């Protein structure tokens, strides 16, 4: 029974890492990863369900951080280099990663019907609602 702690701790990372490479690309999966990331980086947010939940592990923090920043940086580059024909998102200049997580997590909470959709649409949906391009704005 007591040894379960070690097993849960060690298996947590490998379980979620396995899930990441075996193709769970849902918005719900990214939501869980980012919730853990926010709990680690901003404990006062109280966003963690449980520290021993095998779904919430070290791998999640890195994957969420990398995914969200990879998305944002490519999107900004495409906008800056005029590679998007009709940008739907105009990111503010000083958006940090934690703010981006909060926007995404709140949006998913408000749109539970989206958790089965691909993570990219969930992220894009949350950002386009939070950071719409205003009329006449030239990003």
């Amino acid at each position, binding site marked *: 029974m007591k040894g379960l702690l070690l097993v849960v*701790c060690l298996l947590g*990372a490998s379980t979620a890492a396995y899930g990441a490479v075996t193709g769970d690309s849902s918005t719900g999966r990214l939501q869980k990863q980012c919730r853990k990331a926010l709990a680690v980086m901003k404990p006062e947010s109280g966003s963690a369900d449980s520290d021993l939940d095998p779904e919430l592990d070290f791998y999640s923090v890195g*994957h969420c*951080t*990398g995914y969200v*920043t990879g998305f944002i940086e*490519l999107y900004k580059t495409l906008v800056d280099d005029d*590679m998007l024909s*009709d940008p739907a998102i105009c990111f503010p200049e000083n958006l940090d990663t934690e703010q981006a997580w909060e926007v995404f997590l709140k949006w998913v909470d408000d749109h539970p019907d989206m958790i089965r959709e691909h993570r990219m649409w969930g992220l*894009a949906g949350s950002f386009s609602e939070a950071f719409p391009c205003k009329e006449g704005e030239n990003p």
Partner: protein
Amino acid sequence: MKRLIVAAVLLCFAGLISTAAVAQNFDTPEGKTTQYLRDACRDAVNGLDADDSPLTPYCYGYFVGFADLYRADQLAGGKSEGGIKRVVEVICIPSAVKVQQLIEVFVSWANKHPEQLHNPRIGGLVVAFAEAFPCEKRENP
């Protein structure tokens, strides 16, 4: 048994602390360089997983985020309007190319271009892929 439990708890905390430190670094000017991403991805290329290298998940996450957005039209079944269609005019990554291969291409490119390591990581990524997957030599996907 108590020692085992203490060790387990310490291991969990140590992992969280190092994970938090890496996550913070990823958002700093130094963390946004091509060199930092190259170093993070070098472990992934060498087959190290999250248990062996705390940087590996950041690398995978970053490239998956890039790849998902790059392939947004594909994800939408080619039905999306506007969007990122024009990016394929610059970079033509064949649909069969996996994220692991993208990482290998980037690390290899970064190793050959030390003069670029101080530049922003996203710029390094785009240049590396534009070189590796140019559109001129093939038809647009």
